[in-house]
Structure formats: C-alpha cells, structure tokens
C-alpha cells in the first residue's frame, strides 16, 4: 500500500543543512497499522508528510497504492484524496461549520452533490460520537471534539490510508481517550494507518509494527512485543526508558 525507497528530505536552514529524513525505506501493507516513535526532531513528522507529498522530498521514491509520487505525470491531488491526514493542531477550517468542514472537499474534490456529502458527513459524525455538533463552528468545540471532527473530515474522502501526526499531543489528558478510541475502531475496521504518537499504550495495543526513528533514520523496526520488551538498539532502549 505504501512503499518508500531511500527517501531523503534535506532542509537548508540558517544554521546549516538538516537531513530531517535520511534514506528511509519502509513497506506498509494494506490494513496494517504502523506506529512511528522517536525523540523530538527525529524526522517523524517530516517522514509522514513525505508520504502524501506535503513535503517535497529531495531524493528517493514514494509509491502509494501503485502510484509513484516522483512521477511527473502523477496528479498529487488525486493521491492526496486517497490519503487522509490528521494533524496535531487539528487544522479545522474555523470559518466553516463542522458540517461544512466535512463536506467541502467531498464536493470540490470528489465532486459529490451537497446532499450526498451531507449524508456522508452526518454518518461520520455519528461514528466519531458527535452527531449533534454539525451546525457548530469548530471554536465552540472542545479539543477532543475538534480532533474527532478532523478525523471525520479526512474519512469523508473515503481514503485508503490515514496518516496521524501526534493527534493527541495538543489535547488535555482527559480528552486523549476519546480520540484514541476512534482511532482504535478505525484500526479494527482494517484501515491502513501510519501513526506518529507518544502514546505508548496505543502503540502496544493497536500497532502491527513499531518504527523507531532517530536523526532522520529508521533505527529499529519490529512488533510491539519485540520493541517494548527487548529492543536491540541502544538508542531505542534509552528512548523507552525515558518515555515509559
């Protein structure tokens, strides 16, 4: 479903060249849930953003469901419609109601009629547990509710893949659970997911594989049992000691 080959992303900053992602090659199968962990600045977000072309990578290849992102003929917007993304800061459209947040891209990108899009939106709001907030503006919602709307917004496009970039990091602790529950349900339904998170409990429970990144590189890959009980790499051990 997702295949990256030696993906490199270089940032030219004032303090020099940063290799945020350094030759990352991973293959993720359909229905797999992969959790990416690693210390701050290790390139997790940047890697995730390379997968849907939000970040233009410097070298390497990314192939999504058989479509090569580096190919000039590839319409990146078509690919992105198949790859939902959920951000740490929710990034809901503040000038639109919850319902409009969910219908906008359906109408513009999927060319669905307003009626069909609204039907879909209501169904998804039901699914994420806030069916009664359709008419509200995002600013009226709690953080947890906003993030669930953001997940619903991404799901409204019927994506084949969902990317999550620290979806619970900006939430008050008591709201983390409700968002993770939605993600767990999604995983059970067989969605292909790549999740950057610091929620080790979630990784343990839901992940099929854990990828540990440091300094732009994939340092260790393995099942949660393997990773959380006896990681090979020193850096992974050190990291686990700090977060667990």
């Amino acid at each position, binding site marked *: 479903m997702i295949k990256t080959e030696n993906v490199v992303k270089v940032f030219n900053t004032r303090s020099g060249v940063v290799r945020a992602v350094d030759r990352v090659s991973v293959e993720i199968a359909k229905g797999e849930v992969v959790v990416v962990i690693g210390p701050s600045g290790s390139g997790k977000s940047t890697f995730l953003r390379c997968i849907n072309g939000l970040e233009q990578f410097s070298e390497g290849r990314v192939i999504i469901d058989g479509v090569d992102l580096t190919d000039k003929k590839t319409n990146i*917007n078509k690919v992105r419609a198949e790859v*939902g*993304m959920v951000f740490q800061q929710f990034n*809901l*459209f*503040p000038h639109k109601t919850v319902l409009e947040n969910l219908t906008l*891209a359906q109408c*513009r*990108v999927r060319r669905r009629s307003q009626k069909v899009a609204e039907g879909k939106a209501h169904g998804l709001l039901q699914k994420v547990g806030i069916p009664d907030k359709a008419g509200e503006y995002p600013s009226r919602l709690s953080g947890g509710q906003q993030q669930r709307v953001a997940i619903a917004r991404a799901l409204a*496009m019927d994506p084949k893949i969902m990317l999550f970039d620290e979806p619970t990091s900006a939430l008050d602790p008591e709201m983390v659970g409700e968002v993770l529950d939605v993600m767990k349900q999604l995983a059970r339904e067989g969605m292909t997911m790549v999740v950057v998170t610091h929620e080790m409990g979630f990784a343990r429970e839901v992940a099929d594989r854990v990828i540990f990144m440091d300094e732009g590189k994939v340092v260790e890959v393995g099942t949660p049992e393997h990773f959380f009980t006896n990681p090979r790499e020193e850096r992974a051990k050190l990291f686990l000691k700090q977060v667990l």
Partner: protein
Amino acid sequence: MKATTKTWPWKLLLVVILLVFAAGIWGAVQKIDYHWRWNRIPQYFLYLDEEAQKIPFDGTVESIRKVGDDAEVTLLSDNSQRLVQTVAADSINVDEGDLLFEGDTVGFVKEWRIGPLVYGLWTTLWISAVSSVFALILGLLTGLARISNNLTLRGIAITYVECIRGTPLLVQIFIAYFFLGTVFDLSRNVCGIGALALFAGAYVAEIVRAGIQAIPKGQTEAARSLGMNVFQTMADVILPQAFKKIMPPLAGQFISLIKDSSLVSVIAITDLTKSGREIITSTFATFEVWLVVAVMYLLVTSVLSQVVFYMERRFAVSD
C-alpha cells in the same frame, strides 16, 4: 482601588479643552477682521432656479389662467399662431391684452436645483467607488502574485508596489494625466480614476499579502491534504479567512481613498474640492467653504467607518 473609576470628570475636561480650543480660534479670527458670510453657503447645496420664459414671436397676450401656483399664458402671434407658456404665478410679467415683441419675458419657471457642492460630493463619491473596485481587483491580483512561487510574477508585483509607494500620489496623477493621458489620448476621468486605482491597489496588495500570510500554514496543509488544488484552497479556505482579517485595514484604505481623491481636482475634475475652489472664486467666502467641504468629507468618512464597524461585528460570528 475601585474597578470602575468615574469617567465624567475626564469627559468634562475634554469638553473644556475643546471649548478653549474653539474660543482660541474664534478670537484669532476676530483679530483679522474676517467678514463671515454663512448665508451664502446654502445656495450651493440647493437653490431655486429661475428660468425666463420668452415669447418667440411678436404678438399679444390672449389670456392668463391660474392653475395652482402656476399660470398658463396663451400667446397669440400676429399671424394667428397660438402658444401656451406655463410660468410661476407670482413671477408673471404681463397682463391680458399686452402687446409683446419677440424676446420679451413673459414670466419665470421656478425649479429647485442641486448645487455644485452636492454635485461635487457626488463626483467624489463615484470616482472613489469606481477606483475602489479597480483597486480591489488590482490589489487582490497583485497580493496573490506577491506571494506566488513564480519569480516573474513576484518581480512584477514588487516593482509595481514599490514604484507606487515610493512616489507621491499628486505626481502620479500628473503623470497619468499629462503623460499617459496625452500619449494614449485618455479623458481626465479615466486618468484620475486610473491613478487613484493604481495608487490604492498597491496598498491593497500589501494588505492582502499580509492577510493571507497571517493565516496559519496548517490551513493550507489541511486543505491540500484533502486533495484540494491550489486554487480551491485559496478560494474556499484561505481567502475567506483572510478577508475577515483584512476587512478593517481594507476599509481604512478605501476611506483614505475618498480623501485622497481630492487630489484629482488638480486635473480639473470637478469633485468636492474643486467645487469648493470654484465657489470661493465667486463668493470670497473662503473660510466658510473650506470648513463646509471638510465637514462633508468628515461626514462621508465617519458614516463609512460606522458601516464597517457594524459589518465587522456581524462577521465575527464564527470566531
């Protein structure tokens, strides 16, 4: 300390200061022995026009019939041609049976007409409005070009904005009229509106650019991650939010434009300012006219400010 302090002493102080200020001006004017002629001003807003009705042939007044405030005068020419003229009853100059020669005045038609101050204001308003529309379009396009990834577009936008912001509007109007207007054979209105639109457009462009850049990057990323293209993202996500942010400075710019439009009077467009100057040449009521003109500008701009203030509150629902 109490949370609510009394405000009336400060308001009183304000009134006192304003009164002292006004008295000072009053005293200074008394000293130079200026003769105020406020009574001459109203006629430049509205006046009763008297148009003389003249007999177009030699003949006699056959009959006069009163119809309300008007009188219908039936004239009979020497070769038995009849003509009915309607004039104001109290202005009638002739009696039944009078002998008249061609060109004699029968009476006057009285009609209320709008004076030059109102016409001038109207000119100022429509020139500002038309310029604003063009400035908005131009500023929007330039603002977008200014932040585009295309180097050429960006270069054009920067050059335009810098040239306009680095030169006085008065000089721009002269160039538009005496240079471009002559070369391309443009009317003074086109030159005036063009210069104002170009001038305001550059400032609108900067406002638009700042407004767009003030929208968090996450908004663009969210829209793009949903598969929306650059144009859809701009039109549906970024611009609606940016516009809410730039409404106040944009409104300020357009209110400024109304004031700046007074400069087109130098290329003989009869706007409010030019009307004022023309009235002074016939009345010598210099002080009165300029004060009245200033108050008229002030009224227009403050009404607009209020409208904008009201609209801002209406727009603030989703925040």
